[in-house]
């Protein structure tokens, strides 16, 4: 099902196994390879509402594997600009392409300085290998 384990250098990471791709004062969020591997086959993703306000370290949506439900934690705060409806229709994209077609939301950041609190790829890899 899944791709090879990877943690792209151009992303920033939250310890709750989320990634953020920062583009100015906007960012795209998703879950990491480690997260999707822990979940197993993702069978359900209900995208949140566009326009909703989300807060760093708080759940903003859920993903479900066959057996379990998991909260997805916001790596940064902001307002949702777009959601990945394709991943809602084909949730397996979260397994097969977690950093690409498996993205979850695009957000306008309310506090871009929060980015400095996130981990780089090396620090995140160190965290998950503990």
């Amino acid at each position, binding site marked *: *099902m899944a791709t090879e384990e990877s943690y792209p250098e151009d992303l920033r990471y939250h310890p709750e196994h989320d990634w953020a791709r920062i583009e100015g004062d906007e960012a795209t969020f998703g879950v990491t390879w480690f997260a999707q591997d822990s979940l*197993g*086959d993702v*069978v*359900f993703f*209900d995208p949140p509402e566009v326009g909703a306000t989300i807060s760093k370290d708080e759940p903003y949506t*859920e993903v*479900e*594997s*066959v*057996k379990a*439900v998991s909260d997805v934690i916001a790596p940064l705060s902001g307002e949702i600009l777009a959601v990945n409806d394709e991943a809602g229709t084909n949730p397996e994209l979260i397994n097969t392409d977690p950093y690409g077609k498996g993205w979850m939301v695009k957000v306008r950041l309310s506090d871009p300085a929060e980015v400095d609190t996130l981990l780089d790829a090396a620090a995140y890899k160190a965290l998950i290998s503990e």
Partner: protein
Amino acid sequence: MNAAELRRTPLYEEHVAAGGRLVPFAGWEMPVQYEGVAAEHAAVREGAGVFDVSHMGEIKTSGPDAARFLQHVVSNDIDKLVTGGAQYSCLCADDGGILDDLFSYLLEDGSYFTVSNAANHESDLARFHELAAGFDAEVEDLAPSHSMLAVQGPEARSVVAALADGELPARMHTATLDVAGSQALVCGTGYTGEDGVEIILGNDGVVALWRELLAAGVTPCGLGARDTLRLEVCFHLHGNDMGPDRNPIEAGLGWCCKEATGFAGAEAVAAARADGTAERLVAFAITDRGIPREGNPILAGEDRVGTVTSGSFSPSLGIGIGMGYVRTDLAEPGTTIAIDVRGRRREAEIRTKPLYAKSN
């Protein structure tokens, strides 16, 4: 429970080697999945999969009164169990509550093998001993020395037949055969809704059998797939879909209760059958998006009318399915209900059991 206190089957190292993800289950450390639940589920529906079910218990009953004793213990009519046959039943408390569900096999030598659920094995044994007073029957715990594999799927029989020295038993029958070098009780039973066999053998032979099955291309399957497979065909999971607080009538297991035999709990079951029950176990499917989970409230309109006892995504049907107890007047297939999935209302419909059949 501390990981150090968890018990391991003789196949523990094999599970690790096969990439199994081990989790605590009923006091055992068992594989929940290897490659993934969806792939393992599909292997059983389309090919062949093997489950280590060595955590399940085996109770041997023998002696001159073995048949009369078991007739008193289990809910089904043990006199209808022929030599080489298999029978499903409930083990009931005196008040009719379901202590466990069991498969019993009658062997050539007149003794019985009864398979119990891991979580209930010790309390089942205690119930057997409690009921044994006055019977000339010996009750023996074979669980510590025996292992069990379930090989399930449309190709399961041909794979096992190639490893066995004789003809495999028909469905709901047993045969004592040499399989992969060990004497084994091969049973034409399973809990997946597919054809296949369950193989009970001494602990010494199970590693060799497991390796032969994997070498023959059988997919190792974990508890995750076991649960989705059994739920699709609406087989009960004790501890979820029934328990000591539910009688066989409300659980839909009246078919395996023969109160005329006078089994322990028969009077309470007969009363439930005669009077009806306030609730019934039903199967349902979500008709919009969402996946029901154990404990979710079941709604009719705005009223709470029950609780989900098993809920999952169905890999075969591609939708959320479940079972749960509802008010008896709402239990008819076709009734519209809704499931409160963590605060979201998901429309659902009560369906005929099983939810999945081969013709789907």
